[in-house]
C-alpha cells in the first residue's frame, strides 16, 4: 500500500481538522434536531436579486469578467462603502473576490513572508490562522474577554506584539461572539497599529448586521487607509452566502499584487454572482432592513431566554450569534455541546471551535425561526434540569 502522506505537503497535513466535524455528523442524521449552529442567514436571497440573475443569464452573461470584477460592480461597491466613510478608487483600489474568504487568502498571501506574525483576536472565525500557516506565517492569538464584550484591547495586543508582527486581523462585528468595536475602541487599536507599523486586514462581512449601534471601519480613521485592507461581501447582509461574492479594498499597491494572485488562481468571481451583487447594491436596501429588524427581534428573544435560564450572556451588538458562558454547568464546551445534542437534539457550536479563548462558551446562531428558537430554549432548560444546573 502506497504511503500517501509522503507525497503531500506536511504543512497541509498538519492543519487541524474542523472542530465541528463530529457534531456535524451526529446532527445531520438526527431526526427532529433543532440547529442553532448555522453560520449563515436563514433567509433565502431576496427574489429581486435572484430574478436579476435569471435575466442576466437570459441575456447571455455567461463569460469572464475583468480580473478585478465588473466595472459597474466596483463602482457600486465604492459608492456603497462611503456610508462607512471609506473612499476608494474603483479602478485601482477594489478587487471583487470569491466571497470575503478569498479576500482573506489573497491578502495574507500578498502580505506575509516566511516567519511574519499575524495577530488574530481569539475567539474568531476559523480561517485566519490556517491560511497564515499555509503562507508560512505565524498565527498569534490575541485573547479577548467576555468582561470586555469580546472587544480587542490594546493591553492584550501589547502582550503579544513583537518586531516580527506584521499584520493585524480585525474581524468585527465578530463571529462567534457578536462583539463589535466602537469608534473609540478602534481609535486605540489604530494608534497601536501605527506605532508598531502593522498592516490591518479588517474583515467587515457582518458590517450591516449591527443593532443599537453603528458600524465603524478602522480603515476610515486618520492615517489608516494606507495600512488597511477592508474585506466585505454580500453573504450576510443580503443573504447571499452561496453566491460567493465579496470584495477587498485598499491601497492600490496592495490591490495590484492581490489581483495578480486572484488572476492566476481564480481568474474572476463568477459573473452570475457579480450580476446578482450589483442588483443587491442597487435595490437591496429595503429587503435588507427587514432582515436586520428581524435579526434584532430574535437577538432580543434569545438573549432574554438564555438569561432567564440562568446563563451569563452579554447582549451582542452585531452578527447573528450569541456567545453565552456555560462555565456554571461545570462542563467543557465540547461536553456541553455533545450532551445537549444527544439528550435534547439541539445543535450549537463549542466556543473552542473558534480558538482556545472560546473554552467555557458556546455559539448559538439566532438565524433560526422564532418557533425553533422558543423550542430550543425549552429544550435547553430541560437539559439544565437534567444535569441539575437549572436556575
Amino acid at each position: 500500500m502506497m504511503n500517501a502522506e509522503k507525497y503531500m505537503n506536511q504543512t497541509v497535513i498538519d492543519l487541524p481538522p474542523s472542530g465541528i466535524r463530529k457534531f456535524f455528523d451526529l446532527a445531520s442524521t438526527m431526526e427532529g434536531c433543532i440547529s442553532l449552529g448555522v453560520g449563515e442567514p436563514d433567509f433565502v436571497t431576496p427574489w429581486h436579486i435572484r430574478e436579476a440573475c435569471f435575466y442576466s443569464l437570459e441575456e447571455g452573461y455567461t463569460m469572464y469578467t475583468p480580473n478585478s470584477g465588473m466595472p459597474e460592480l466596483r463602482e457600486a461597491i465604492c459608492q456603497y462603502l462611503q456610508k462607512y466613510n471609506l473612499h476608494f478608487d474603483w479602478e485601482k483600489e477594489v478587487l471583487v473576490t470569491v466571497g470575503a474568504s478569498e479576500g482573506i487568502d489573497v491578502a495574507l498571501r500578498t502580505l506575509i513572508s516566511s516567519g511574519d506574525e499575524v495577530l488574530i483576536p481569539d475567539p474568531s472565525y476559523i480561517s485566519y490562522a490556517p491560511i497564515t500557516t499555509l503562507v508560512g506565517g505565524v498565527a498569534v492569538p490575541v485573547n479577548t474577554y467576555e468582561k470586555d464584550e469580546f472587544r480587542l484591547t490594546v493591553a492584550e495586543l501589547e502582550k503579544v506584539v513583537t518586531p516580527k508582527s506584521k499584520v493585524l486581523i480585525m474581524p468585527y462585528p465578530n463571529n462567534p461572539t457578536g462583539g463589535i468595536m466602537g469608534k473609540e475602541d478602534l481609535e486605540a487599536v489604530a494608534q497601536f497599529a501605527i506605532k508598531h507599523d502593522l498592516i490591518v486586514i479588517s474583515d467587515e462581512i457582518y458590517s450591516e448586521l449591527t443593532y443599537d449601534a453603528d458600524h465603524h471601519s478602522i480603515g476610515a480613521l486618520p492615517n489608516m487607509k494606507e495600512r488597511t485592507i477592508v474585506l466585505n461581501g454580500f453573504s450576510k447582509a443580503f443573504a447571499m452566502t452561496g453566491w460567493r461574492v465579496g470584495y477587498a479594498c485598499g491601497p492600490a499597491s496592495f490591490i495590484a499584487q492581490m489581483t495578480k494572485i486572484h488572476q492566476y488562481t481564480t481568474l474572476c468571481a463568477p459573473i452570475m454572482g457579480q450580476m446578482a451583487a450589483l442588483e443587491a447594491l442597487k435595490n437591496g436596501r429595503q429587503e435588507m432592513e427587514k432582515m436586520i429588524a428581524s435579526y434584532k427581534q430574535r437577538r432580543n428573544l434569545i438573549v432574554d431566554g438564555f438569561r432567564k435560564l440562568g446563563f451569563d450572556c452579554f447582549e451582542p451588538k452585531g452578527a447573528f450569534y450569541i456567545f453565552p458562558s456555560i462555565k456554571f454547568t461545570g462542563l467543557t464546551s465540547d461536553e456541553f455541546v455533545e450532551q445537549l445534542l444527544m439528550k435534547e437534539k439541539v445543535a450549537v457550536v463549542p466556543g473552542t471551535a473558534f480558538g482556545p479563548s472560546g473554552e467555557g462558551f458556546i455559539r448559538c446562531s439566532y438565524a433560526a425561526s422564532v418557533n425553533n428558537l422558543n423550542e430550543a430554549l425549552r429544550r435547553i432548560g430541560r437539559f439544565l434540569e437534567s444535569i441539575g444546573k437549572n436556575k
Partner: protein
Amino acid sequence: MDNLTKELLILLENNNRLTTEQIGSMLKASPEEIAERIDQLEKEQIIVRYNTVINWEKAQVHRPTALIEVNITPQRGSGYDKVAERIYRFPQVKSLYLVSGTYDLCVIVEGDTMQEISNFVAEHLACLEEVRGTKTNFIMRSYKKDGVIFNDNTTDKRLVISL
C-alpha cells in the same frame, strides 16, 4: 404611531399566536406593557380581527370565490359609500374595495357553490339600481394570499452546522 406599536402590529399581523411574553422579549418591553398596548389597539379598532390564512384547496374543501368588477353610479351626497355599504352588508361579500381604473368596486365573493355566487350576482348585486354593470371572474387557483405563498416547499436547505 411610535416604533414599538408599529413593530408590535407587524409581528401580530404575521403571527398572532406569539405570547405577550415572547413579544415582550423580542421588543424589549414587559408582557404587561404589550398586553396593554394590544388592548388599546383592539379598542381603537386598529386591530380588527385575528385571522388565520387557510389553504382550503389543500384541505379539499371546495370554496368557490369570484372577483367581481362592478361599475356603479355614485350618489349625490354620499358618493360611493352608500352603494358600497349596500353591497358589503351581504355576508357573501368577503372583501370590497373602491378602485381606480376601468371599474369602480372590486367585490370578492365566496360561496359554497358556483351556483350560489351566480345567484348572488344575478339576484342581488346586479339588480341594485346604482349598479350599472358587473363582470364576474371566478378564481381558479390561489397561489398566494395575504403575503403567504401556498404550497411553498422552500424548506431550510442550509447545512445543519457551519462556521
